[in-house]
């Protein structure tokens, strides 16, 4: 029953729908949540949706990982290494930037005792 899902177009459609759903779950949280830490968590969920989209869109049927082993004759019939390399660095950078944002939230809570973005009115007059 899973042969239907083994076609490349169907796999791409599933990847696109799933990753964009994950992205917009994060966007929904970003728009509706009031707590600072929850907002940063929503941004992290949006990031993971984008990573899945990048990796999923380069899927090729029966292609190999772009690493040469003993059984192969050269760099033929392999997946695209460029999106993998980009996402590899983007994950580490995303983690560091998320930690920076969380540290800003911690410091703000330490200074004022507030975490709700509706109560952050220090710059409004």
């Amino acid at each position: 029953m899973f042969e239907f899902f083994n076609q490349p177009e169907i796999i791409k459609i599933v990847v696109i729908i799933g990753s964009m759903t994950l992205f917009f779950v994060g966007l929904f949280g970003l728009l509706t949540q009031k707590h600072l830490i929850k907002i940063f968590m929503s941004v992290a969920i949006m990031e993971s949706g984008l990573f899945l989209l990048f990796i999923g869109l380069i899927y090729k049927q029966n292609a190999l990982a772009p690493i040469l082993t003993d059984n192969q004759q050269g760099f033929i019939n392999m997946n695209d290494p460029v999106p993998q390399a980009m996402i590899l660095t983007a994950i580490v950078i995303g983690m560091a930037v998320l930690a920076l944002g969380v540290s800003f939230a911690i410091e703000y809570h330490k200074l004022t005792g507030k975490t709700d973005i509706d109560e952050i009115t220090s710059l409004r007059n």
Partner: protein
Amino acid sequence: MNLKRDISTSTFSGFALSASLILTFLNVLLNNIPTNITRVGDQFLKLNGSEGVANAVTTVVVYFRGFDTLGEIAVLFIASLGIGLMLDSNTRCNLKADSNFMLKTASQLLFPIIILFGIYVMVYGHLSPGGGFQGGVIIASGVLLLLISHKEFEVPHSVITLLETFAGISYVLIGLIGLVVLDKFLGNFLPHNISDMGMLLSGGIIPIIYIIVGIKVGSEMSMITQNLIKRSDDV
């Protein structure tokens, strides 16, 4: 009635906006599924054989996009610097619960193995899945285990400063040597024969640069975890 404070209104409008955006994006993406396009990755795979590195992702990260990786290392350094400035590190651990004897012993047993595995992933980054970014994060996870289990443990600040400075300076120096020798920044000036492909000593400067990236990522991630755990606040 204050509409801004009404939770149901904001939830509804957020849901409507997300739903309309997801329909628009799905319409665009599903109507333009890329099937047979000429990709830059195919050209990179053809060029990859001339560098003598078995892992094509490593070649793309370190060699073809080496200047970009230098910029990403700089972004990581700036984020680590910002966290260090915001949360001034304290010797007092912020965790409430005490760790028991079993956790302490097991973490002492596991820490050298985690560090060894991280170094293995870093050094074999040009032959197998892995590399500097992954190995550095594995080493930082070992440091995180020690920070959770041992409250008196502290990452030595002078060692981290030395490692980070060494890694940053040597990355730029290797790039400048390539500029002098081969007339291009980050040129591969060390011997990189195709016949050596699959050996530990192959690929010229590519494994050296990936080890440098691993040292920098590992030290910065360790400092970030320490700054987030040992905060100097009372809440």
